[in-house]
């Protein structure tokens, strides 16, 4: 039967166009499907809610590149918004060459809203060496002598009293890679309180670390960012995109179903 064959051989360009349409329409006209918040997201929220603005400083490690897309970038945007709301100071460092540029995007937005570089936050830039660099920085944060704007690290008000990673109240990494590097080199040896924001693709492989308590909170991509925006009471871009995500998932599941239907009908035909 021709139509059974056709079920399995739909032109890929039709799939591409349908995917674009199905993603674009809910972006322009959101459906407003309600969102449930998971424990992994709530854990990070609760940690930041428990911090003290007068004395706690948070370390943010920006370890992703623009190629990871909004799936990686939207998580730190939500977390930094929470830190800003609570008046918690933070310092960023990167072990990926493109990390400092991603941190600067967020810093630029905060400065336009009146926050002060050096006092409320700072960007220490990139340190080469991957795992060795993480361990070196964790043991001696003043290894990085100047920040991305040429200021001496020791002169920055936000870095006062910080010598090792243990002096930070909380470490949050944002990565499109493996969180195991930070866990191996700093979290386990020094007993740091650590959470990670990773791309959706990497969430399953990070689950064992969350389950064993090595990661205290796990924010997995766009969905976690949407949940975080919901917890903050400021639904934004992430929440708006979840409707489009839903429609895209339904489309792909529909196509998988069609392909399998064609396969099984064809097999039955063959018998």
């Amino acid at each position, binding site marked *: 039967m021709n139509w059974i064959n056709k079920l*399995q051989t*739909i032109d*890929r360009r039709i*799939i*591409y166009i349908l*995917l674009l349409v199905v993603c674009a329409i809910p972006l322009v006209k959101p459906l407003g*499907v309600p*969102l*449930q918040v*998971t424990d992994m997201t709530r854990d990070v929220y609760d940690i930041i809610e428990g911090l003290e603005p007068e004395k706690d400083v948070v370390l943010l490690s920006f370890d992703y*590149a*623009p*190629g*990871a*897309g*909004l799936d990686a970038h939207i998580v730190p945007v939500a977390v930094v918004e929470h830190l800003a709301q609570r008046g918690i100071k933070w310092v960023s460092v990167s072990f990926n*060459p493109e990390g400092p*540029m991603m941190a*600067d*995007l967020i810093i*630029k937005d905060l400065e336009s809203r009146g926050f002060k570089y050096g006092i409320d936050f700072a960007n220490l830039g990139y*340190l*080469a*060496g*991957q795992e*060795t*660099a993480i361990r*070196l920085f964790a043991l*001696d944060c003043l*290894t990085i002598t100047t*920040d*991305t*704007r*040429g200021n001496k690290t020791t002169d920055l008000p936000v870095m006062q009293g910080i010598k090792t990673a243990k002096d930070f109240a909380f470490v949050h990494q944002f990565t499109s890679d493996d969180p*195991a590097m930070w866990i191996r080199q700093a979290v386990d040896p020094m007993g740091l309180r650590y959470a990670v924001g990773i791309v*959706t693709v990497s*969430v*399953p*492989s990070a*689950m*064992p670390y969350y*389950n064993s308590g090595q990661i205290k909170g796990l924010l997995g991509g766009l*969905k976690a960012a949407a949940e975080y925006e919901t917890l903050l009471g400021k639904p934004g871009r992430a929440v708006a995109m*979840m*409707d489009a*995500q*839903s*429609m*895209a*998932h*339904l*489309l*792909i*599941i529909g*196509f*998988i179903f*069609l*392909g*399998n239907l064609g*396969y099984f009908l064809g097999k039955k035909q063959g018998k």
Partner: protein
Amino acid sequence: MRKEVPMLITFVVAIIVMLSSITTGPLPDVFKNHISPWMTIVSAFAVGLASVNLTRVHGQKISRKRDGWVYSLILLGSMFFYGIFRSYIEINPSNMAAAENYALCYNHILSPLSSGIWACLAFYVASSSYRAFRARSMEATILLVSAVVVMLGAAPIGAQIWSKFPAVQRWLMNVPNMTGQRGIIIGAAIGSFVTALRVLLGIERGHLGGTQ
């Protein structure tokens, strides 16, 4: 000596790094004050290797005017533009005007190019899962069902179709997935430990190259 000296370097450095994690005394300071900063510098030099190779390959293409040499010119032009500009900013970080101009070029050219090409994967995933994802066997069916449940549970629409989808998705993530991932992590870690031991003892010499 051409293989023995590098093997000795590997052994000595590995022992220092390993013992610096588990002992007190001078070794942790040797790691912190020497080995680690040296690693940062050598790693930074290593980053340039790819660029030298790119320059050689594409430079030859341009000089011999081979097919597509114009694209090679564009590649090298882009590399030198960003390389020189970024190097200037790293050496003169207080020049805020230069940093802002670089940020414009980075955020509106390089960043969308990078995320644009990765976004193509969404289209490929859609098309390839339609074309190739078939429940041909028991294992394939388990894989297919898990994937579909996760996709429905992860998206808010799943809860509207069946209220239990998110709970089933969470169970799949937290129990069988976590078990399988844990097994893979432990297996891979044991493998990496064995390989590291082989490198330390000089049994594994792949990193030392060919027959010279």
